[in-house]
């Protein structure tokens, strides 16, 4: 419709929803539209079209809770899901401060509702369009009629692209006037009285270019206001990595011991485990543990993340330990046997300590890799350092400062470890 009005051929470019704004500024496309929310900060940073659709932030709850949970304030201490980097997420953060709601951030708009029905979260706060579509797909919840907030969808363009924006606004106004936009909305089942009132309001206003408002949270105070949440997220990353590594080391040791000492059956089962884990993406494994197994065990997201990363890295650790155990020459082990040491004692006093020296440096390198891979768990709603940075970057519209801060925190974790690994390598190779 807009392209036709401009006399141009529309071309679809797919990017992640949270990257629409940044991609528009980069020039990946001229105009980004897909539920882009009209927010003052966005108006200040980019060229923004007039609001072409009015949406309501609505609460979805399980039928049995519809009387209990009518407003956000009713959900003290309860988990409320939404999409990260949205107006709804900001509303939840406010509600967290004011009434103790626990926000849970998702990367997609499907799983919040399936997790609501499954009992993993107690409510979902999202745009009514999304909620209604989800209800058609996943019955088993109700949408509260009273909206939590009202917002508008806009198209977003690069800041310098105001000329195109003005043309688009003109086209949108004329399509609102002549009823063709209403016709489209009706055909998509998203037309209601509030849209009619919204159109009237838009058409009665005189065109005014955006540009005012608070563009940057990239001020010093903006940075300091984000620091606590970044540091918290860094804590999540550190804790997640340490716990996952603990699982990886213990399971890895068991797997390696089984593959070196076990019978044929044990060896083949463990070999299959290692090959399956190493041969499939960790993202897939996280999805399977969190969503795939939810019918059997409904793990909390953090536990699922720790277990998923831990079991994944256990496969890699086990290969390190196995190689290290097998690197200890047989004659030493035979000498130990002729001296009367039992297999367990040989493992404990002869083979294990020497294998540990060989394994320590590659283990440390693996821990650094795990630290970075822990960013993958945001796909199962754990907000760790990278995810928090993405939220920060989306809200400020720039990756520069958040990116530098995030990288600095990762380096603070990983540099000492890398140094430690290098020192160990030098020390043992000299030995």
């Amino acid at each position, binding site marked *: 419709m807009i392209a036709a009005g401009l006399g141009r051929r529309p071309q679809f470019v797919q990017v992640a929803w949270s990257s629409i704004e940044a991609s528009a500024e980069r020039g990946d496309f001229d105009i980004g539209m897909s539920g882009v929310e009209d927010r003052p900060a966005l108006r200040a940073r980019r060229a923004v079209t007039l609001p072409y659709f009015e949406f309501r932030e609505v609460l979805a709850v399980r039928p049995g809770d519809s009387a209990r949970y009518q407003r956000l304030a009713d959900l003290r201490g309860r988990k409320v899901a939404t999409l990260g980097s949205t107006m709804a997420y900001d509303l939840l953060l406010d509600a967290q401060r004011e009434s103790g709601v626990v926000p849970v951030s998702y990367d997609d708009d499907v799983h919040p509702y399936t997790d609501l029905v499954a009992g993993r979260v107690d409510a979902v706060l999202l745009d009514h369009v999304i909620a209604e579509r989800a209800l058609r797909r996943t019955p088993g919840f109700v949408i509260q009629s009273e909206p939590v907030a009202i917002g508008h969808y806009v198209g977003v363009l690069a800041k310098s692209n105001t000329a195109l924006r003005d043309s688009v606004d003109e086209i949108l106004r004329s399509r609102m006037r002549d009823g063709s936009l209403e016709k489209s909305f009706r055909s998509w089942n998203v037309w209601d009285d509030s849209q009619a009132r919204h159109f009237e309001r838009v058409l009665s206003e005189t065109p005014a270019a955006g540009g005012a408002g608070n563009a940057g949270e990239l001020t010093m105070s903006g940075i300091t206001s984000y620091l606590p949440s970044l540091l918290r997220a860094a804590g999540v990353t550190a804790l997640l990595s340490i716990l996952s590594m603990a699982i990886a080391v213990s399971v890895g040791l068991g797997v390696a011991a089984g593959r070196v000492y076990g019978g044929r059956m044990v060896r083949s089962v463990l070999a299959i485990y290692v090959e399956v884990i190493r041969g499939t993406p960790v993202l897939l494994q996280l999805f399977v543990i969190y969503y795939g197994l939810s019918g059997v065990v409904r793990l909390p997201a953090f536990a699922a993340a720790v277990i998923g990363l831990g079991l994944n890295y256990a496969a890699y650790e086990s290969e390190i330990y196995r190689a290290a155990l097998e690197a200890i020459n047989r*004659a*030493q082990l035979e000498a130990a046997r002729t001296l009367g040491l039992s*297999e367990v004692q040989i493992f404990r006093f002869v083979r294990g300590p020497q294998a540990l020296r060989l394994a320590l440096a590659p283990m440390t390198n693996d821990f650094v890799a795990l630290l970075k891979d822990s960013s993958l768990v945001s796909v199962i709603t754990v907000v760790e350092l990278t995810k928090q940075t993405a939220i920060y970057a989306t809200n400020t519209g720039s990756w520069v400062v958040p990116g530098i801060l995030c990288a600095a925190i990762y380096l603070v974790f990983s540099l000492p470890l890398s140094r430690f690994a290098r020192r160990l390598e030098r020390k043992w190779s000299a030995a």
Partner: protein
Amino acid sequence: MSASLTITGLEMRRGSRQILSGVNLEVSPGEICGLFGASGAGKSTILRAVAALDPFSAGSIDVGDFSLVPGPVPRESQLRQLRKRVGMVFQAHSLFEHLNALDNITLAPVHAHGIPQSRASEDARALLDSLGVAHRADAYPRELSGGEAQRVAIARALAPGPMILLMDEPTAALDPARREALGETLRALAREGRALLIATHDMEFARGYTDRQIILAEGRIESGPASRAED
């Protein structure tokens, strides 16, 4: 005097290959017996069978009143008597690389034989002293010369107090002076009443320092048991 080690009709096959056939052998206390033969003659195989590292298919091996029988190698828990009585020194000394000389020697006495650490250390120092390497007690295997490492390995094998000492190619890495010193060491060990079975392809050494030479070819004993002691 009854033999420390008696091997009777020892047979070993790997798949279709006959490695040892009809090996009969006795070593008495205080005797140094040389097992001589080319590489692959089966010398090391006999030592490994006596040390219960490899199984054999027929015959028997008696160490004092402990008997090894054909079939799979018994579990370590059933080999405790054998382990106390038989010490073995491997060709490449095979010291534990992460432990110093003293700890290499005390490891088994302390953990396998329940001797208190202080007494085990004392004994180990005495052994190192008798072998002339007391000053190397704190050195790690990588810091030892070939001759020193071998002496530490001998001390380690002697620490549990075995009645038989098996040695696989002990002269392989030694210069002539060291070989002579080793020979004297073996004589001293035999004088203390131990039985020594030495596998070697070094005929000169075997003639010079063993009481009896048994020549092995393709898994059979060709000559012997001519004993110098009986000359």
